[in-house]
């Protein structure tokens, strides 16, 4: 089939960027969306033009690297599918497709469809973990977790950190991303210990990074390739309310800082 593409081209963060038109000919329905772009790029390269830059790695829908907004929907029309797993049989001959980068203040564009999502990493770094050291932990089976809780934690933990939720949210909020992490760890006894600290530091990090807030539009869930549930946002809010009055302290045990040498 033949398609008309309007693709966002932007040299770097300073450039203003614009949509450019490309024709994609001879596209087969068995191709993935990214393979379709590969075909377009190959032609561009051979014509001496710069190919469209886009992020991708596993092409299996698990690494969360791929990120594009297709006809206004992050990851495209199929639902519960990453762009790399989206196949061209979802489109028809003659379609016009708009391809844009994820848009959010917290995700500056690096080049074309590639954006900088390190803000999500910084939210995790702010406290999205259990502060356990390597070694010295008890036998795994001494920590019992009800099957239901373990399964729910797993459902939350499926988040691939692609940032589609942020790009879909009219407020550019990362609530679903936080919700997934906070709920995953809060469901487990190991994670309860520092639940308050975690939610507080992650929420402040989210604001600091320039993400918006949740107005419960639920666009995030609609585009989430892993279908992370909205109830986790409620859980995040619950955890946040529980943490009222908690005074954050720094994790001084993370590294043996300057050990004073006793003489």
């Amino acid at each position, binding site marked *: 089939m033949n398609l008309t593409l309007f693709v966002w081209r932007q*040299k*770097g963060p300073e450039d203003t960027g614009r949509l450019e038109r490309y024709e994609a000919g001879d596209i087969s329905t*068995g*191709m*993935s969306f990214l*393979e379709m772009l*590969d*075909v377009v790029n*190959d032609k561009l390269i*051979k014509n*001496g033009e710069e*190919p469209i830059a886009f992020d*991708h*790695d596993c092409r*299996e829908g*698990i*690494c*969360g*690297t791929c990120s594009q907004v297709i006809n206004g929907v992050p990851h495209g029309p199929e639902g519960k*599918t990453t762009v790399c797993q989206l*196949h061209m*049989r979802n489109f028809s001959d003659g379609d016009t497709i708009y391809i844009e980068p994820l848009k959010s203040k917290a995700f500056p564009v*690096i*080049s074309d469809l*590639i954006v*900088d*999502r*390190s803000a999500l*990493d910084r939210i*995790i*770094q*702010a406290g*999205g*973990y*259990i502060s*356990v*050291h*390597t*070694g010295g*932990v008890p036998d*795994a*089976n001494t920590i019992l*977790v*009800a*099957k239901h809780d*373990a399964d729910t*934690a*797993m459902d939350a*933990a*499926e988040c*691939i950190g692609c940032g589609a939720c942020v790009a879909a949210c009219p407020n550019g909020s990362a609530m679903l991303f936080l919700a997934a992490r906070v709920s*995953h760890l809060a469901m487990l006894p*190991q994670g309860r210990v520092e639940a308050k600290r975690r939610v507080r530091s992650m929420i402040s990090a989210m604001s600091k990074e320039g993400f918006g807030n949740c107005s419960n539009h639920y666009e995030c869930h609609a585009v989430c390739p892993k279908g992370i549930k909205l109830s986790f946002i409620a859980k995040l809010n619950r955890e946040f309310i529980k943490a009222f009055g908690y005074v954050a302290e720094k*994790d001084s045990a*993370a*590294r*043996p800082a*300057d*050990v*004073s040498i006793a003489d």
Partner: protein
Amino acid sequence: MILDGKCPSGPLSEKWDKRRSEMRLINPSNKRRYKIIVVGTGLAGASAAASLGELGYNVEAFCYQDSPRRAHSIAAQGGINAAKNYPNDGDGIYRLFYDTIKGGDFRSREANVYRLAQVSNNIIDQCVAQGVPFARDYAGYLDNRSFGGAQVSRTFYAKGQTGQQLLLGAYSALSRQINAGSVRLHTRTEMLDLVVIEGEARGITVRDMITGEIRSYAADAVCLCSGGYINVFCLSTNGMGSNVTAAYRAYKKGAFLANPCFTQIHPTCIPVSGDHQSKLTLMSESLRNDGRVWVPKKTGDNRSPREIPEEERDYYLERKYPGFGNLAPRDISSRAAKEVCDEGRGVGPGGRGVYLDFAGAIARIGESVIRQRYGNLFDMYERITGENAYRQPMRIYPAPHYAMGGLWVDYNLESNIRGLFVLGEANFSDHGANRLGASALMQGLGDGYFIIPYTIADYLAQRTPGTVTSEHPEFRRSRDERAVEIKRLFSINGRKSVNDFYRELGGVMWDYAGLPRSEESLKKALELIPRIRAEFWENVKIPGSGSELNQELEKAGRVADFLEFGELITLDALHRNESCGSHFRVEYQMPDGEARRDDENFCYVGAWQYMGADKMPELHKEPLDFENIQLSVRSYK
């Protein structure tokens, strides 16, 4: 040269303890004076960087993705082994050790594998403490399943996303150290060179993938955790960016590359659908628990599968390996599939596929149970192929999946270059000629959490920290060379894209150096690869410039290395005149078609040394001594 793996002496089960008690330690307040570079933030890299940072070292971590969480470890599906014996089915450290050695067709080091089995239990404890949501039973205990041909249930799993969950666990630990300032993270930064000064690894040269800047980092030791090289086949189950560059550049600086020809071809992948194919998708091996593999008995039978009557189907795995049937190990299943397809009995486009049929299982236990067990895999299959596997059998085909070979390391995970440690899939250490399912995750995390923290201390304790900076002439030379290389790539300005060459190389590797291999085919590959390489350097086209984000340039650098490395794989395969594990040479088979291993002549690790461009690399051998187990024919009949 005869290589020494430096394994401790003494009884197998005491070796690691013995080594640990002998190793030197570093005063806690001194640790921060030592800088350690960790290249790669997959399971091996993230766990190493986190553990080392936590101990107080000054760690610089690098990855080419935009986040550590995207390393290819994320894609592992099936699970991770451990010798916990929770199900009480007869497992234990020795059995896991034995199975791994046997699975690797007796081409790995006993001491390493035993240690791996020992630390496997600590890994599970560690991961649970980090919050990895492993599957549990109704009593709240951890659940296990049998995986990849094992006869005990020793695999821990988190839905079909075990690698993801383990990586997120290691990523959490890493994030905590980044927050604490003990690890500095450099994403979108690709290692292009190892800097060796006076025989010791002292740093790396990298390219900033956003600005194009070439920079160097000096350190007291370097850990390479850069993953496997199976993308030399172009189409594989690995991520698009997985590469050999980091390991190959170390090889060019003198590190030995061991057993490169041990490349695992996974039996259950979704077949190629056309020329546009950019990667292959693995379907979890667990599908073989309930699916039956077959092809039509007649060649060229293109009736739809449901119309082919039972007696005209060849359930070839059940026929050839009645003991294991559809659960026969990976190398055996893959070879059998390739064989029937080469006979012309393959199904689907180009005859490159065999059926994996669930009709029997659906009739026996019901569609809902199958949906519960494999629903997400069936969905994924449908998304990619547009076919409903509840109604018609899946089509599967073998695909390159894992690299057992890698940089040579001794028992301490140190390569022959002092101060260069290699962890995870990037080293050659534990899987011999074939890796068993669910053991790569175990190895990556074992290396990073529980081995490197000890062995690197022993190395560093003998050195004064910070004796060189990145202004040392050797670093400057390294940067200049990289800049020249990049300039050279742009100056070619030919007519073919990098992908054109990559596909050509992959085709040659698959056809002539894949599965099976013969002297003739390998020689053919040795003739073709240099030709492709020569054309690459004359006719490749890379648009844009080196001083910006340039994905074609990144790919070109990786493909250039694969074009040299492919030849090394072929040489290694050609020299190994035996069949073992994943390495199947048609000349060396039993009358019944099984692999004929040659323990007399090839019971060694083959480690190659770079001798210069266009020069024949030199082979060094590390003999494998089996003190504790008897070498036997690896039979799954």
